[in-house]
C-alpha cells in the first residue's frame, strides 16, 4: 500500500509548483491537491478513521463467532478474540511492522531484484510534536497513523482463524499460533505485495485492500489448523453431518453488521490518501462499491438458499454479506456500482456452495471462515482482472498460489509442532462438557439453560 507514496509525492510537488499561480488569478484552475500540509493531515486522518473502523471489526468477529458457537463455548470464544487482538498488537510491534515495511532495507532481496524478507526491529513512531521536516514522509501520512492502520489488518487476519477452530482448540496453543501468525507469517507475505516486495515489483500483483494478503491468509491458516485439529466430536458421524446450531443468532447478526461497517475503513483507508479531489472521490467510490458488494452477497445468498432449500438461511445470509465484502476487497475502486454488486453476489454464491462442500470433506469450519475468507478471497483476487487493466490473470493466480503455499505450509508445520509439544485439542470429555466449564471454569450464560447438550 505504502508504495503509492511516489505517486502522491509527485502530485504534491506539482501543487507546490502550481501554488504560485494560486490565488493570483481566481479564474485559473486551482491545484488539485490541497495546499500546504492539509495533505499530510488529511491522509493521516484517513488512517486514523480507517484504523478505528478496522479495529471495530475485531468486535465484529468476536460477536459473529460468539453467536455461532454453542453456548457452552461462548465465553471461550470471547476470551480467544480479545486475547488474539491483544497479542497481535504485541507481535506486530515487536517484529511484524518492520518485517512488512522494510522501506527498502530487505534482509533478503532488494526493491529492484525483488524483496523476500523484510527488516527486523521494533516499530518506532515519529517523535512527539514533529515539524514538517521531521515527518518520515511529509507527502504521505504520519507513521503513527500508518502503524495503527496496518496493525488492525494484521489483527483481522488472526480473528479469521479463531472462528474456524472454535469449540475444540485449547486456548494457549491457539494464542501461541496467533503470535507467530501476526509477528511473522502475515507480515512476511504482506511485504511481498504491500512492502514493495517481489510479488508487487516482479509480478504486478494487484490486491487493493487484501482479498489475498489479508483474507485468504487467514483462511489458509485456518484451513491448516482445521485439518490438524480435526472435526468437533459428533459433527460427522456414520456419514451424516450433524449440525450444531449457533447459540445466539442476533449476536452473530450484530457481528456481521459490525464487520460491514468496519469494512469501509478496511477498503476506503486502503486508498492511502484523501488529500486531493481525486483521492477523496476515489475513497467515496470505494465506500459505495464496498456497500454494493455486501448487498450483492446477501441477496445472492437469500435467493439461493430459498431456491435450493426452500427456506432462507440467516447464517448463510450473514456469510454472504461477508463473502461479498471479501470479494470486492481486492479491487473496490475500479468497478461500477453494478459490477461491484455482481462481484459480491458471486461471493455469496460461493459460500452457499462451499460451506456444505467443506462438510463433505469433513473439514469442520465452525463459522464458515474458510468459504468466506479463503474461497471468496481467491475469487475476489481473480476478479480484479475484470475491471483493472493493470492486473494480469497470471500475476493474480501466481500470487494467490505463492501466498497460499507459503502460509498453508508454514501454518501446518506450526500446528503440528504445537500439537506434538503441548497438544492443541482438549480432551473429548472437556469438549463435551464445553470449553467454558472445562478450560475457563465459568459459563457464558449461567442462567439461560443448558440446551447446548441437546445437540
Amino acid at each position, binding site marked *: 500500500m505504502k508504495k503509492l507514496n511516489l505517486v502522491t509525492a509527485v502530485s504534491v510537488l506539482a501543487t507546490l509548483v502550481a501554488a504560485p499561480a494560486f490565488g493570483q488569478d481566481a479564474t485559473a484552475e486551482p491545484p488539485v491537491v490541497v495546499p500546504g500540509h492539509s495533505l499530510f493531515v488529511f491522509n493521516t486522518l484517513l488512517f486514523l478513521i480507517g484504523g478505528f473502523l478496522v479495529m471495530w471489526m475485531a468486535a465484529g468477529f468476536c460477536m459473529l463467532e460468539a453467536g455461532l458457537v454453542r453456548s457452552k463455548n461462548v465465553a471461550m470464544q470471547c476470551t480467544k478474540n480479545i486475547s488474539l487482538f491483544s497479542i497481535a498488537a504485541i507481535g506486530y510491534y515487536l517484529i511484524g511492522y518492520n518485517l512488512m515495511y522494510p522501506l527498502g532495507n530487505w534482509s533478503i532481496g532488494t526493491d529492484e531484484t525483488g524483496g523476500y524478507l523484510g527488516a527486523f526491529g521494533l516499530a518506532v513512531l515519529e517523535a512527539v510534536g514533529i515539524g514538517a521536516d521531521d515527518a518520515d514522509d511529509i507527502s504521505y501520512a504520519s507513521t503513527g497513523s500508518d502503524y495503527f492502520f496496518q496493525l488492525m489488518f494484521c489483527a483481522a487476519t488472526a480473528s479469521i482463524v479463531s472462528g474456524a477452530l472454535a469449540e475444540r482448540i485449547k486456548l494457549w496453543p491457539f494464542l501461541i499460533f496467533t503470535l507467530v501468525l501476526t509477528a511473522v507469517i502475515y507480515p512476511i507475505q504482506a511485504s511481498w505485495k504491500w512492502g514493495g516486495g517481489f510479488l508487487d515489483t516482479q509480478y504486478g500483483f494487484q490486491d487493493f485492500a487484501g482479498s489475498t494478503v489479508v483474507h485468504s491468509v487467514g483462511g489458509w491458516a485456518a484451513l491448516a489448523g482445521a485439518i490438524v485439529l480435526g472435526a468437533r466430536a459428533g459433527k460427522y458421524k456414520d456419514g451424516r*453431518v*450433524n*449440525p450444531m446450531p449457533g447459540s445466539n443468532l442476533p449476536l452473530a447478526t450484530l457481528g456481521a453488521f459490525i464487520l460491514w461497517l468496519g469494512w469501509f475503513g478496511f477498503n476506503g483507508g486502503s486508498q492511502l490518501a484523501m488529500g486531493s479531489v481525486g483521492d477523496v472521490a476515489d475513497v467515496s467510490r470505494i465506500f459505495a462499491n464496498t456497500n454494493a458488494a455486501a448487498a450483492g452477497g446477501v441477496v445472492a445468498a437469500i435467493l439461493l438458499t430459498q431456491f435450493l*432449500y426452500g427456506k432462507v*438461511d440467516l*447464517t*448463510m445470509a450473514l456469510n454472504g454479506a461477508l463473502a461479498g465484502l471479501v470479494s470486492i476487497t481486492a479491487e473496490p475502486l475500479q468497478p461500477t456500482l453494478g459490477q461491484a454488486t455482481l462481484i459480491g453476489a458471486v461471493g455469496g454464491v460461493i459460500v452457499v456452495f462451499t*460451506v*456444505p462442500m467443506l462438510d463433505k470433506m469433513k473439514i469442520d469450519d465452525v463459522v464458515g471462515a474458510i468459504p468466506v475468507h479463503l474461497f471468496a478471497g481467491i475469487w475476489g483476487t481473480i476478479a480484479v482482472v475484470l475491471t483493472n487493466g493493470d492486473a494480469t490473470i497470471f500475476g493474480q493466480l501466481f500470487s494467490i498460489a505463492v501466498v497460499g503455499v507459503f502460509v498453508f505450509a508454514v501454518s501446518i508445520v506450526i500446528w503440528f509442532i504445537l500439537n506434538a509439544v503441548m497438544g492443541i485439542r482438549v480432551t473429548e470429555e472437556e469438549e463435551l462438557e464445553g470449553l467454558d466449564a472445562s478450560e475457563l471454569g465459568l459459563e457464558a450464560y449461567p442462567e439461560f439453560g443448558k440446551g447446548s447438550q*441437546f445437540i
Partner: protein
Amino acid sequence: MKLIIAIIKPFKLEEVREALTGIGVQGLMVSEVKGYGRQSGHTEIYRGAEYVVNFVPKIKLEIVVSDDQVERVVETISTTARTGKIGDGKVFIINVEQAVRVRTDERDEDAL
C-alpha cells in the same frame, strides 16, 4: 389425591389454564420440556446439512387434585388441548400419598 401430568402444545397453555381455573383448579406447575413422539422426525436444513428434528417443544403441566376432581380435570385438559393433529400430547395420572402446604403446614386436601 392424584398428580395429573399433562403434556400439551405450548400455545395451548393459556387456554388450558383458563379452562382449569374455570372448573376450580387452584394451582398448578408449568415447565418446558422437549417431547419425542410420533410428531417428531421432520427434517430441516442448516447451513446446507440436513438433519432430523427429534425433539419438539412442549409444555408439561403438573396438577395435584383430590380424587373426585380427577375425571373433570382430565376431561377439561384433553378437550381444551385437542387440535386433532399429531402431537397434541398426553395426560398421565399418578397417586399422591400426601400433600403439605408449606406456609401453613396444612395437609392433604386442605393443602391444595
